[in-house]
């Protein structure tokens, strides 16, 4: 099972490999989550959800549900 963004730790970086949910994938693509792009896990909100990540120098928030649909390679 490939790793996904929800499993990353603060400060960790990885490369986006693909999406496991087509519907959310479309929205994520539009926001710049492109396969092959680097993603950095910045920090999570106090209860661990949502999280803040950086993709091409942009800070974005994601819920864990959404983050878990982004598979990564690192």
């Amino acid at each position, binding site marked *: 099972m490939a790793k996904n963004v929800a499993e990353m730790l603060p400060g960790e970086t990885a490369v986006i490999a693909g999406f496991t949910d087509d519907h959310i994938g479309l929205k994520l693509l539009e*926001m*710049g989550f492109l396969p092959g792009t680097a993603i950095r896990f910045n920090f999570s909100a106090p209860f661990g959800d949502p999280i803040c990540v950086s993709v091409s120098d942009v800070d974005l*928030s994601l819920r864990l549900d959404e983050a878990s649909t982004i598979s990564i390679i690192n």
Partner: protein
Amino acid sequence: MEQPNIKIALTGKPNSGKSSLFNHLTGLNQKIGNFPGVTVDKRIGFCQLDNNIQAEIIDLPGIYSLYPRTLDEKIVTEIFSDKNNSLYPDKVVLIADATNLKNCLLLLTQLIDLKIPTVIALNMMDLAAKSGLSIDVKKLSASLDMPVVMINARKGHGIYELKQLLLSPIKASSKSVFQIDAEIKPVVKIIRDYFNLSSDYEAYHFLQQTDNLVFLKEEQRNFIKTIAREHEFFPHKYQGAETVMRYGFIQQLLNGAIVKPSHRDWKRVSHGIDRVLTHRVGGYLIFFVVLFLIFQSIFAWAQIPMDFIDTSFARLSNVLSHELPEGPFFELLSQGIVPGIGGIVIFIPQIAILFAFISILEESGYMARVVFLMDKIMRKFGLNGKSVVPLMSGWACAIPAIMATRTIDNWKDRLITIFVTPFMSCSARLPVYTILVALIIPDSKLFGFFNYQGLVLMGLYLLGFLAAIFSALAMKFIIKTTERSFLIMELPTYRMPKWSNVGYTIIEKTKAFVFEAGKVILAISIILWVLASYGPIEEMNSAKKIVRAEAVALNLSEGEIQNRIASYKLEHSYAGKLGKAIEPMIRPLGFDWKIGIALVTSFAAREVFVGTIATIYSIGSAEDQPTIKQRLRNEINAETGGPRYTPAVGMSLLIFYTFAMQCMSTLAIVKRETKGWKWPLLQLFYMTSLAYLSAFFVYQIMS
């Protein structure tokens, strides 16, 4: 105003400085309305480009791409794909955030494929410079075959150049970014020929988003769907590939145009602030301090202008009733219309202050963090992070609060937020709270520090809030939906708020309140005035005779006689009859017919309670709070022989006012936002039942 010569649309992603540019171009020459048929704010302004040419500027909601998800986004897609739309622009200005060019250009490449004449306004050049980023603007412009202007929308730099550019003829870019798949070319061609469209991409959009384009007629929609089925075209199948292809183009473009990328740590300060503001403990602490400050200012600062407005309108009404000749029309004017308008104007200070704060929080970038912090908790209750702003606004007034729910993209979350927002104790409840709390709660201190009255008042606000979130929780399980909710949003870099934008927001929201809610409040207050001033003719006519006869026996002064006449008339008016009619129903709550009259008159707006009570008990003016308090305290319950307003009755009334839906304008706004009577009626029924039952239990337990 002369007819504008050209139509210009401003578009771009959220947080790219669109409203700053709009405010710079149009100044106060703005009109805020609604797009026809939907409840999305339409911001239109006028801009004199030179001595002869005036442009109509349309500020479109911020979007990332032409595949919409929210109501706001759908509007943009519709305008750009319908040449017959009255808002279809002659020219488009795409505002791009220079520090984050990549995300801004997705929409641009779509506009290129739609063959819409576009210019790029490259904004935030100051930040780009700070981050060490350097862009070859000439190359960017040449590669896109499109003019590019550098601007600083906050300071107004580059606006002149932009205007000059907009005066010159602009042609659509000759580039074509998205190559439509060979296997769907035939079906695209059929649609393009059928609708006589100017680009393949437009035809492709008709295929992709048949249901989102509301301007299509039913038979046109069926035609597209049939053709799509025949050619085995499935919407969304190609959307991902399209986005990837567009980003491929953008990456190549930026590889050539970006001379030097920004250095990594230019957001260091912003990230540092984030560490504090989203801290596990500190983050919430700071948020609650901010909330407390907002809350305090609304009540402390708004009090002076509100008192001023209150006395001014009371005086005006008084002067008018003395100066104008007698007659029903003049009475309507001086006692119905003028106080009615006063009842609207009095809310302006609180609404203005609240939206000043909300706008500052939004401008600075903190609001996105509030959404981020609160999302998890709010989701447990069927709401989402974006429900925080509407709920907070509910403390001032439910009307702008419900309008603020439009940013919530998920329909179920939005509906629940709309449904529960009126539970938040709005400013109209405050006068009722104040007088009743002062009446039944002793003015002493707990541990010599906490004022009991203050604690009870806070408790009432808390009670309203709890009612809101637990009702939301119940609705979470009742309403079924398959629509999924997202929280994929940008956390913008922190910035100082731009104060003029704050000013424009205040003006915009206040206007919306006055004209949206104001109409209803005025209409209802006139109806209620009529109900409370007229009754069966012989009873009303005999008022003076009967009271004067009593007065002789009691040896009353002229002022007291007038107050008694007013009281007698109210008792025998239609409103008075209604109050008496509902007495059996409200008796279990501890209320008598006098309170019944106040309930009837405050159906339209809660704050009317105080004025009605003042009239019923023959107190000259509602201003005189100590007198009202004294009079209520002395009121005797004929059945028990004890005081009428026992703590049980007072608490029961307080609870009733905390929960009950007594605001016609809120119902009107909810009807508009949910497009039907179903939700406002459910809301009315639910809130009133909850109020009734809670007041019933409180009274029965306490007495």
